[in-house]
């Protein structure tokens, strides 16, 4: 079966522009938040009628090239711990392989055999993992943001988990030079496996990889972000090859995503320099939470297609539409706040010369 042709998405100008916009918003959020932006782009494409597996395959392929560009820059800044990356890459490959295998199996066995329902099981599975994982991430981020607004709070991200694992003494320990930490090999393997599995399932790796490196391994934030991109490059390549081998990469979608995402990525990264940390966490948390709600709205349609609930098939379109609107609201709200701040900073930079104040010390007489 020639899957891509039988599920061919007609890319007229409006659809193409929507994919570019998805890429731009995903890229802006990604540059600002530091994750891959897949949480927005994958469901966005699914809402445009792209089967879940093709959306994930095309997005992970897009992630491969994007991470390659990003990790090059981070390497120049000394933010990449290659040893950490190497350990995580190996286990991530196994994680991705498991994810692709589950996804393919669900795709082949799922649905009621009528039209779009053939991919319902796979779509439901992807949506379920997406909702569970990103709900936890969003709530944690919002809680962190609220806590750091309290000016008397003395602490940032906790290292409780990293310290607890260090006390368990699970040899052999690995010394990570760049990150300047010592960690058990078993912890590294666990983190790699989980990151790979999620990257392969929902195309989201950074949301798990970066916090895991910070909280579980105890890596500094900049090194976690740099190493994650290094890792994402390999995982993206491996994911792309796997999905391409299965015939699930729609290269047109990948190319359209690039058109928006790389511009958005640079703008988002610029935004991180001019926006306060609390704002970054709040925008990220709210955006992800809205994406989770958007994906949840689409779930009843998948359940009906699998025959698990009784619902008028005509309602599928409404659920899909509501999900799509919600997602775009999430993206627009998040990207809007970021772009607003970037524009303000851009304007402020032009006024900067006027900020110079020169004040000679007042003479003793002037004090009266």
């Amino acid at each position, binding site marked *: 079966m*020639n899957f*891509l*042709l039988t599920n*061919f998405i007609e*890319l007229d100008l409006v659809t193409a522009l929507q994919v570019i916009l998805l890429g731009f918003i995903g890229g802006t959020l990604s540059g600002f938040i530091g994750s891959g932006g897949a949480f927005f782009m994958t469901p966005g494409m699914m809402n445009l009628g792209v089967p879940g597996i093709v959306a994930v395959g095309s997005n992970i*392929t897009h992630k*491969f*090239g994007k991470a*390659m*560009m990003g990790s090059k820059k981070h390497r*120049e*800044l*000394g933010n990449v711990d290659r040893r950490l990356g190497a350990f995580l890459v190996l286990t991530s490959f196994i994680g991705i392989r498991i994810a692709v295998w589950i996804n393919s199996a669900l795709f082949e066995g799922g649905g009621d055999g009528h039209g779009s329902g053939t991919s319902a099981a796979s779509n439901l599975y992807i949506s379920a993992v997406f909702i569970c994982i990103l709900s936890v991430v969003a709530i944690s981020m919002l809680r962190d943001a609220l806590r*750091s607004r309290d000016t*008397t*709070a*003395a*602490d*940032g991200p*906790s*290292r409780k988990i990293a*310290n607890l694992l260090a006390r368990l003494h699970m040899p052999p320990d690995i010394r990570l030079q760049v990150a*300047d930490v010592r960690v058990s090999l078993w912890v590294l393997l666990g983190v790699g496996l989980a990151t790979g599995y999620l990257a392969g399932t929902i195309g989201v790796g950074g949301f798990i990889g970066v916090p895991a490196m910070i909280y579980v391994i105890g890596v500094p934030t900049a090194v976690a972000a740099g190493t994650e991109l290094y890792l994402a490059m390999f995982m993206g*390549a491996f994911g*792309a*090859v796997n999905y*391409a*081998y*299965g*015939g*699930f*990469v*729609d*290269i*047109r979608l*990948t*190319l359209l995503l*690039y*058109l928006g995402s*790389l*511009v958005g990525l*640079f*703008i988002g990264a*610029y935004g991180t*320099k001019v926006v*306060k*940390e609390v704002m970054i966490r709040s925008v990220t948390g709210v955006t992800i939470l809205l994406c989770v709600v958007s994906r949840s709205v689409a779930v009843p349609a998948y359940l009906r297609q699998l025959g698990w609930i009784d619902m008028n098939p005509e309602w599928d379109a409404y659920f899909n539409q509501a999900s799509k609107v919600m997602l775009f609201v999430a993206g627009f709200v998040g990207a809007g706040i970021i772009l607003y701040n970037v524009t303000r*900073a*851009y304007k*402020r*930079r032009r006024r*900067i010369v*006027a*900020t*110079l*104040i*020169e*004040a*000679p*010390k007042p003479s003793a007489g002037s004090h009266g």
Partner: protein
Amino acid sequence: MQVICISRGTLTGGKVLAERLAGALGYPCLSREDLIEAAVKEGIHVGKIEMAMVKGRGFSDRLVLEREHYLAFTRAYLCEQALKGQLVYHGRTGHLLLPGVDNVLRVRVVADQEYRLKAAMQALGLEREKARRYVEEVDEDRRQWVHTMYGVSCDDVSQYDLIVSLQQFSVENAAAGLTAIAQLPDFQMTPASRQAVEDLRLGAKARVFLARDDRTYRASFKVSASDGVITVTYLPQDAGLAESIPPVLESLEGYRSIRTTMATSNILWIQEVYDPTSEAFRNVVEVATKWGAAVELMRLAPGSAEGAAAPGEVLEAFDGTIPQIQPSSREYNGGIEDDVAEGGQRTWAENGGLKQTVEELARQGRSAGGREVRGSQTHLLEMIDRSVPYTMVVVGDVFLSKGSAAQLRLAREFRSYLADNIKTPVVATDELKAQFLFGKRDLFRLIGYLAVVLVIYFLVFTHQRQILSFLSGEGWVMKVVAAVVVFLFVPIVAYSYGTVSRSFLKLIKIE
């Protein structure tokens, strides 16, 4: 004025040695505990800072300000004590609070594990295993503190003048040895080192004033002082406080004028001769404006770097005879060259255009101050304030007295040395344009890659069905070919289009 900083490990005997040395020299002895006590009296939550560091937590906005206040307060306190006369300080890494003061004698005291375990068991009444754990944990806490505060490792021996092990060396003999070493000309006060301490004190004191005042205590500031001129940089979100800075500092003693400017980060520019009309100056200012950064100048006095030994270089073979004591490669000069003529006026040739360039930067709202340093490459590293998070270090023309080929080679080695030792990108002034500013090369690159991108997209979107048919072909051979094609094709698109978009944003100055 003489300052001896003793960096002590956990229970290595450093405290006893410092007290014995201070007694032998007749100097006052100041400990880290005294410093902390003064900081607590000032109202700084040192305990919270320490806990956040020890537990490896990040810093909340409030704690970042506490840390700035703490660093400024301890620096000002140490400088004031030093300016009173002589001082022996013992703590973690006190010398890092005095960057640029070249007569500080920096001593690290170490002892083997057994010595420390016994000391812990005796002093704290612990069993051996608990004592071992205690020593390890305190060591780790100290490492964490120094790393977080100054971005360096306290175990890095290159930052000390002497390492003293009390294992086979009695405290009395170690103190006697240090007393003799402290008499060497390298560790005597010069007008330059006194001026450096004055500048550090003034800058730190100004920061403390800003932290104490209700109008400005909520904002983050970078403050430096040079020759009585205080430069304060603040973040864009604190622009509303700018007008309050001069009144807050009005009662501060010893300054001539205050310059305040908005900046999101700092760029350090190292060069021998500055010229505010040069292309290098324009490029640095353009990059700084683009990034919203302030530029700090560090003038490398001519002849000082090349006269010194490069790291690892042996100056001359030791022939067995004890040489007459001479000032070492820091070019001890009694401060004669650093003396400033009456009225503070030095000619262009004398200050290498430093003063004029700082003035021009100030006029453009980009100045973070400037200073002159002399000494070897290693010495230069000590001059760089590690508590300032520089975005970039720019290295301009250095080793000017050498031939052009040697100049190129030495400058390249110098940049590599800096890059290896500070966690900040180091670039040459002539690379600035290519890397960060839009030039002709970028224009050609933009056009070239744009053409490639257009061709790729045209071909893909005019052959959609053929391409999709190929990508989802049947049979394992076709599948492998499809996977290989995707693997090779995607990076080409990403690189080409990434270059186009980056060049375009560079053109419109969003980076």
